[in-house]
């Protein structure tokens, strides 16, 4: 157990961070180069102004027609994604760990806030799971991988919540929390979670084509 803890808090952290960084940079660079070679239009039509215009309409809740048409998933998706990104970066325990290891620190969330946000992420995962099963057209699109991804995202939050509240077996849960968090980080560039990095480019390009070439709105 102790050995596993040492691994999870030592070498695995580095593997996860480096794997994440290398994967992100590598895949994006590969796409940029492929675009240069096979899709030169992407560079021709890309326009920062129209890309940002489109991104703004899709990053502000209810600023696009599609979001207004689907209010429930819009709220769920925004709450889920914000909590998913903010909680691990600003959880007090994480900030303290980083400070103790590398002597750098930043603002952290009050514990009760992080607690609530963790629950929101878990509820978000449940919402997406239920939606995937209950809505026929979403179920049709779903692959086994989509369900695994939900589990992969939920795991660090469930175990983190468990550890924080020091429930039965929290020491094991703590190790699982570290392992699952590292696994998620490592998987980010190599699974559909990569949509996080692709979004600015796909949305931005759609916005560019629609804006600069087609003189139309894409939201």
């Amino acid at each position: 157990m102790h050995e596993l803890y040492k691994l999870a808090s030592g070498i695995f952290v580095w593997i996860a961070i480096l794997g994440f960084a290398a994967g992100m940079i590598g895949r994006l660079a590969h796409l940029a180069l492929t675009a240069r070679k096979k899709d030169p239009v992407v560079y021709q039509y890309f326009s920062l102004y129209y890309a940002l215009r489109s991104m703004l309409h899709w990053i502000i809740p209810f600023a696009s027609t599609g979001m207004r048409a689907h209010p429930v998933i819009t709220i769920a998706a925004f709450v889920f994604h914000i909590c998913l990104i903010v909680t691990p970066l600003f959880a007090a325990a994480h900030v303290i760990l980083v400070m103790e290891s590398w002597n750098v620190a930043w603002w952290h969330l009050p514990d009760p806030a992080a607690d609530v946000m963790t629950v929101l992420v878990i509820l978000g995962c449940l919402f997406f799971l239920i939606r995937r099963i209950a809505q026929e057209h979403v179920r049709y699109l779903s692959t086994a991988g989509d369900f695994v991804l939900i589990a992969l995202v939920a795991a660090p939050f469930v175990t983190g919540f468990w550890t924080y509240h020091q429930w039965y077996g929290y020491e094991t849960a703590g190790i699982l929390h570290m392992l699952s968090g590292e696994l998620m980080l490592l998987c980010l560039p190599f699974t559909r979670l990569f949509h996080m990095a692709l979004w600015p480019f796909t949305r931005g390009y759609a916005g560019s084509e629609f804006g600069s070439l087609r003189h139309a709105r894409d939201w």
Partner: protein
Amino acid sequence: MNQNNQKDTANNKNGIYDVGIDKGASRLTPEKIRKVFDALVETEGGARLRAYTNACVHCGLCSDACHHFLSKDNDPRLSPAGKVKQTISRILNKKAKLDVDFVKQACETVFTECNLCRRCVIYCPFGIDVAYLMLFVRRGCHQLGVVPQYIQDTAHSHASTFNQMWVRDDEWIDTLQWQEEEARDEIPDLRIPIDKKGADIFYSLIGPEPKFRAQLIYQMAVIFHMAGADWTLPSAPGWDNSDMCMFTGDMEMTARLKKIHFEAAMDLKAKRIVMGECGHAFRSVYDVGNRTLGWKMPPLPMVHAIEFYAEIFREKRIEILEKFDRPVTLHDPCNIVRGRGLGDEARYVINETCSTFIELEPNREHNFCCGAGGGVINCGPPFKNKRVESNRVKADQLAAARDKGAEVLIAPCHNCHGGLEDVIHHYELGLELKFLGDIIYECMKKE
């Protein structure tokens, strides 16, 4: 339902037999199909293909952007992402077997169940261009020789005659002279100038105009004449701005077609191109043609008829005697509204010519497709019933405007006319269909 749908997918032919699909596919083997698609992905599948297929999180938010999905009782196979799943996703999965049934089903999906209207692009949080993905599969089908017969026939016409409708060179000139003669009964000094060098306007139109709707050439000649426009048409091929080849995946032919069209205008040293009221042709010249030929933008200025109409009204070069007095509504064609943002210009022209205007809901970029575009109507009679049934949502949208009092539906696009005519007839909507040019011609001062 889900299982049934998946079962349908295996032999999804809806009982429709099409020589181009069925006979074409029967000549293939799984090895050959795999080889062709793999080679296509290798040579032409770039960053967009990868980014679009990897970014999709299967959220289904595109589903109700699609008129096929909505019209067919939310059939999950017909959501944009559902069509991607059945076609390009399997092609990109190297382990998936691509057999003859797959090609038949994929061909029917990409050619007849997607109008490439891009409405889903503006509902997808990622802006995934499903039309691009469907066209990618169409390109593969073209390379395999599996294309619905009717649209392939128009592609053959393009290849042989440089126009869509097998119009012979002498018939083209004959039609122009015939329309000039007819029009001179009404306006004695009217001309349809052929091959005039250095004219301000090179007017181009689509093959079906001389073939079936010659009166549109007459009408446009009257509008040009009364607006005092300096215009011309070419006697040689290059007059047809349409292009079914970009819809069949024959991009080599598309390049030839667009090149001859631009060159015809440039040979006559025209200052700009004005195109007739057609949407797909506009897309082919403005968006697809320039790219295919390696230009970021068209090599000379070009405008759609709507822009030209708006211009002559703004410059007061044309006079309306009495506004069209029946209530009208407007169908925003995808290729000039989502494809060129001409919604406001169209409304300006309507405002100048009609007394009562009733909006369709949704409208502009959010309007529902006519169901005919993207080459779907060109796949011909075998798919007609399916096409009309796949656009019930359009009928509902039109019925709502009719219930508010609309009597006339304006659609400034030939493809839309075809699709909407069938929808109006099938769902007994009782709307009359018109081009903007019809209304202008009817209401303008002609002396």
